[in-house]
């Protein structure tokens, strides 16, 4: 158990390319923090710096009360779950789980106890003597998590652990990870590019873009008050509508160079609404549907209950107080 504190952390590669810059995050003991961003935003690099697999070029990383910049991965008291699971293919599940403990000269009885415990928690008891290749994707994922929990580390680091699973299994495993973390109360950093995974898992979200932090906050804070147009478009599905002020001059707002954001679910059909949308396409989702169209040359998406066929043009109103206003640089005004 430990807090993790990143202070102005940066990564510059030998060629001078900057992958991460000026990242400061305070992660409390037992907190589940998710780093989310598009591919290439530096989230994995950041995680690998915490793990010690990547050197830290700027700033400091603290785990507990130690600065770990120059400490070997093995001595940082962390466990990591890799995207491809990184299970040792020539070892049985039991050996995979025990390997980290064996290297640390844990007594045999203690190893057996902890492996049994982890197997119990993750329900992998029946597979302990199998080789990883004889397991399904979900089982491998559990073993990878088991390898992390037997160590009883100060922190778990997850590097896109669910992205190799099929959609259905991903939802199940997502819940399992959440429950497991709740139960063990181990500080966790989780990297993903999937905003839904990020929203559902996180105590706090860190949205990264081009190696820098765009916003830190609880999932709801980030959803309700995105700090920039980038966050607004990245978090939430379907994505927030971002309309340039010029296209809708009659809507309230301040800056003429700015952008107005409206979530698709905040728009409703209203005969006297201030927006007129030309319907271009409809996606039926069952209970509701997504209607895609355009207004004043700007793309617009609306969520509405499924029903009869739509006319060519719709008049739309927005829920009062649901507008997000951004200035010309894409930063939030209100």
């Amino acid at each position, binding site marked *: 158990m430990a807090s993790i504190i990143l202070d102005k952390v940066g990564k510059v590669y030998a060629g001078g390319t900057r992958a991460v810059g000026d990242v400061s995050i305070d992660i409390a003991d037992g907190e589940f923090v998710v780093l989310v961003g598009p591919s290439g935003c530096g989230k994995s690099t950041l995680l690998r710096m915490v793990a010690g697999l990547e050197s830290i070029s700027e700033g400091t990383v603290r785990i507990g009360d130690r600065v770990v910049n120059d400490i070997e991965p*093995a001595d940082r008291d962390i466990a*990591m779950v890799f995207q491809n699971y990184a299970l*040792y293919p020539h070892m049985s599940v039991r050996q995979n789980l025990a390997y980290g403990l064996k*290297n640390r000269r844990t007594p045999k009885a203690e190893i057996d106890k902890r492996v049994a415990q982890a197997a119990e928690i993750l329900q992998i008891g029946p597979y302990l003597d199998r080789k990883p290749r004889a397991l399904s994707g979900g089982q491998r994922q559990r073993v990878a998590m088991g390898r992390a929990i037997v160590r009883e580390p100060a922190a778990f680091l997850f590097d896109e652990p669910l992205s190799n699973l099929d959609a259905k299994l991903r939802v199940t495993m997502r819940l399992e990870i959440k429950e497991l973390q709740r139960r063990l109360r181990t500080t966790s950093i989780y990297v993903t590019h999937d905003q839904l995974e990020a929203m559902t898992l996180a105590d706090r979200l860190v949205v990264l873009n081009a190696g820098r932090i765009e916003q830190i906050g609880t999932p709801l804070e980030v959803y309700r008050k995105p700090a920039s147009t980038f966050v607004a478009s990245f978090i939430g599905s379907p994505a927030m509508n971002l309309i340039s002020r010029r296209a809708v001059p009659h809507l309230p707002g301040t800056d003429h160079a700015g952008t107005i954001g409206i979530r698709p679910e905040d728009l409703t059909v209203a005969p006297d609404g201030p927006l007129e949308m030309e319907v271009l396409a409809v996606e039926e989702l069952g209970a509701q549907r997504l209607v895609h169209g355009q207004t004043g040359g700007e793309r617009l998406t609306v969520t509405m209950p499924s029903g009869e066929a739509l006319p060519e043009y719709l008049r739309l109103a927005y829920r009062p107080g649901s507008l997000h206003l951004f200035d010309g640089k894409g930063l939030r005004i209100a």
Partner: protein
Amino acid sequence: MKRTLFRNQLLPWLLLAPQLAITFIFFLWPAAQAVRQSFLRQDAFGINTTFVGLSNFEALWNSPEYLNSLQVTAVFAVLVTVLSMGFALLLAVAVDRMIRSTSVYTTLLVWPYAVAPAVAGILWWFIFNPTIGVMPYFLDAVGYDWNHISSKTDAMTLVVIASAWKQISYNFLFFVAGLQSVPASLREAAAIDGAGPVRRFFDITVPLLSPTTFFLLVVNIVYAMFDTFGVIDATTEGGPAQATNILVYKVYFDGFVGQNMGSSAAQSVILMLIVIALTVVQFRYVEKKVAY
């Protein structure tokens, strides 16, 4: 219709013919000749040839010289295999750790493979020549009197080094490829699991390389037993006192120099059986991907 059918049937055979001819003339026919001859005995002038059954093989079994050659071959093959594979692995690991100019080193390290065995033999023969060689000069400085013409150990050392040197390149290439197929995340996971570099190498890399290692093991044994003829012939010619007379060299020497065709043929047949056995082992286990 019939014509086209006929031509279609002939064409495949025509296309196969050159390869079939080569296989038949240079492989199957001589092999059959060897088997036939291994049951025959010729007099000194090649006038009378008599069928003698298995007595050529019996003679070999009772010949201390042949048994010595078997032993020499075993020692030689083990030494060459261990030395060339060990060095190749060392070099491959070194190259694998490099970030830049990997391809330059790889290219340079592969060159010895292009050298013909006899040339490799001559090269090392010069380096180790007791009169004019560089190595004996240095060895003399540390008090070792090198002479592979009279010392059995020195002679064996020379042929082992010359043969292993040539094979390092080949092994190296396979090891480099093998190492590159070990996922980096496995080594990283092991690093987080508290395994130091040496531990990681033996716990993770070596087991994952085992298919490559096994394949090379068979290839190297075959190389040491058969392809080193040129090296031996150019350096020690099997001497001194039979110390480096490996089976394949003895076949040549007894047959073409000693003119004992029956015995030579019997030895070839035994060698042929060894190759067949090794090939079977190769196919049985390499296909199955050993170890994991």
